[in-house]
């Protein structure tokens, strides 16, 4: 009989490797370029990617159930365009923001409802949603709309500035919003029945049902969370760019998914957590920064991420195959 074995979980190993990789790349960047190795660079990773962190956290819920949501980039774009459009008409920010968040939530609900009640493949229904919302962006406006609302401007510019040594470092307030989302998500996934049900569904949906868990509600719920986070990411992105343009963020859903995967979330569900997704985003941020410093074409970011993604997926497989073998011997 097996007693008290302690083995490393797949997600832990992936996360440790991801953390190590992040540190390694940051140190390498610092060694290669002047000004790279600073608190300022580190904080900028958050400043530039706050919206992606929020979106990645939301999509992690869906991935953990074994589903997928490729509509998030369009939700982000639509949020930006629609916000800019409404603000341009003179709507106040405290109405616009709830409205766009509600749109994200509703979009998520419709997706979840189709997945759960009509058993439609999440890929297809979120693809439809992606096309729909991207199209709706163009219906609202084909040209970029600038945002000149005072609240948005204030949100875009409020930051903590401080000196570290000789350099100036800054930390935008909207990053706190992103970090709050991460903490809430962590709490929900770890300490609530809803969160544990998310893992149970990803692990074995049928069993989850037999064990009396509310599979239906939770499955619709994760798509609503993903939709809500995408819309919130969109709001943060409109703080960041102060404009709404129908073609922005094309393909960004894949950045969010790859962040989660690099951070140890399995696309088959049941394994992963939000911290991994945050680290995944930061790794992508570091790559982007290095590419910028190196003066390379921006597409090199994608090439590097592609290579990393392959590496991580193969690594996860190797770890789980080895775990299976050991179990066989035990």
């Amino acid at each position, binding site marked *: *009989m*097996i*007693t*008290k*074995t*302690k*083995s490393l*979980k797949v997600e832990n190993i992936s996360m440790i490797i991801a953390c190590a990789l992040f540190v390694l790349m940051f140190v390498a960047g610092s060694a290669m370029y002047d000004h790279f190795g600073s608190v300022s660079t580190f904080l900028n990773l958050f400043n530039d990617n706050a919206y992606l962190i929020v979106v990645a956290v939301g999509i992690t819920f869906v991935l953990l159930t074994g589903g997928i949501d490729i509509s998030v980039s369009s939700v982000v774009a639509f949020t930006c365009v629609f916000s800019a459009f409404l603000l341009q008409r003179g709507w106040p920010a405290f109405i616009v923001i709830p409205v766009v968040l509600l749109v994200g939530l509703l979009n998520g609900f419709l997706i979840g409802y189709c997945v759960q009640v009509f058993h439609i493949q999440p890929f297809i229904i979120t693809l439809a949603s992606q096309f729909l919302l991207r199209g709706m962006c163009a219906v609202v406006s084909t040209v970029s709309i600038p945002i000149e609302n005072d609240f948005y401007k204030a949100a875009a510019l409020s930051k903590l500035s401080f000196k570290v040594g000789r350099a100036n470092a800054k930390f935008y307030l909207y990053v706190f919003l992103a970090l709050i989302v991460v903490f809430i998500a962590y*709490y929900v996934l*770890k*300490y*609530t*029945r809803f969160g*544990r*049900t998310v*893992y*149970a569904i*990803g*692990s*074995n949906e*049928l*069993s*989850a*049902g*037999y*064990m*009396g*868990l509310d599979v239906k509600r939770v499955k619709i719920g994760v798509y609503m969370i993903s939709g809500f986070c995408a819309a919130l990411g969109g709001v943060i992105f409109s703080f960041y760019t102060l404009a709404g343009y129908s073609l922005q963020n094309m393909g960004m859903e894949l950045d969010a998914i790859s962040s989660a995967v690099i951070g140890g979330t399995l696309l088959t569900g*049941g*394994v992963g957590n939000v911290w991994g997704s945050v680290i995944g985003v930061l790794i992508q941020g570091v790559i982007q920064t290095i590419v910028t410093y190196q003066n390379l074409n921006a597409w090199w970011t994608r090439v590097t991420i592609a290579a990393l993604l392959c590496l991580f997926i193969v690594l996860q497989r190797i770890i789980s195959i080895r*775990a299976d073998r050991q*179990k066989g011997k*035990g």
Partner: protein
Amino acid sequence: MALPVSGEAMGKRDILYMTDICKTFPGVKALDHVRFGLREGEIHSLLGENGAGKSTLIKVLTGVEQKDFGTIMMDGKEISPQSPIDAQNSGISTVYQEVNLCPDLSVAENVFIGREPKKGRHIDWKKVNERTREILKDFDLDINVEERLDNYPVAIQQMIAIARAVDVNAKVLILDEPTSSLSAQEVKKLFDIMRMLRDRGLGIVFVTHFLDQVYEVSDRITVLRNGTFVGTYDADKLPMLELVGKMIGKDYDSLEAIPKLTNTGKEYKELLRIEDGTTGEISGINVSIGEGEVTGFSGLLGSGRSELARLIFGADKKTKGKTFIKGKEKDIRNPLDAIKNDIAFCPEDRKKEGIVGDLTIRENITIALQSKRGLLHKISRKEADEITEKLIKDLAIKTPSADQKIKNLSGGNQQKVLLARWLATDPDLLILDEPTRGIDIGAKAEIQKIVVDLASKGMSCIFISSELEEMERCCSKMFVLNDKKIVGQLSGDEISQSAIMKQIAGEE
């Protein structure tokens, strides 16, 4: 004859009482006025062949299906469960054949998910783990409850599933084929736990195919046949032969009626020979298979009998050794080579490696023939129809039509379709790994008969089974394996269960 179902007279209270249960599926009357009574503190076996209605009865009881007619009384109150949770709330818990837990979650979480102890608003993980340790102590399980569930073997996972089922305040525990993937030792442990739970006053419904296990633990037995109630009996007053008769509705003699090939004492011409065959799994194998002979590979689970079959079929890479077919050396490096040399292989796990559930019977039967001929030579619909019709008739596959999806057939009929698939390719050598596992006695006898018939028509068969009795009945030659080696060979009248066991144990 049948005792009254109610157990009031025995001093023990009926906790569950089902009467007049009817359930009709399109075209099939699955349950026809069936009754079933369960007392407090008893282990009650529910038996019947595949299609007898025991799964349907369990499904009705656990809320997976709804009855058309009849009453279910639980603890004196009528219930009508609409879902497994509903049944669970009435005190009926089920542990299914495939363990229904979440492999990625921890042991403790699997016991408590959905009803976690909380501290304020959030889950109290410390308490979850502590209480799980306490519960598992009753089951004599000393394991790390924070470990992922799938790091433990199936037997332990099953205990954990039972622990959960009992802990949700169950009065009735249904165990659906709990022993089918356990070793003998694990089965013993499970039975100890079942007895312990019975002595605590739980009513346990035990569904199984293994008749000797029924007698080991049961207090009473209920038999169903063709969706009807045959009777409820005290286990110690019903001999096994009589029980089998009641299950299949005919005398046990019809099982014995299979001619023993061993009596013919015939000399067989050699079809295939392996010299010094070695793979990563087994080594130093020398076997010879005769034309038109049924050869058995016998041994305990894990003895290397399946690995030997895989070696012959080229499914495991050979590191050493030679294969001769009809005296000529052949290089069989992969299953396609084997198929081209007219060797066919029916693997052990039919759900995983064999049937394609969503395809029709016709497609399932012709799939191997098509791959043998190559994709460019498409089998015409007419030919496919002819082959399928003939095989459905020859093997007596019970189905409304060849267009039926195979997943809708019973286990025994699925196995026959698999057999038909390989027969369609007209092989010289057919390897059958556990062809009768998990199917009922009637279908078992039919498959044994088919194998013997095929051999008498000149096809060689390799037969692998855990049941020595059916090996003894079907094989005219037998290789006995232990610890990944061939430890003995028997032929003709030498083959007997005791001789096989002696060779496995290394006596003589």
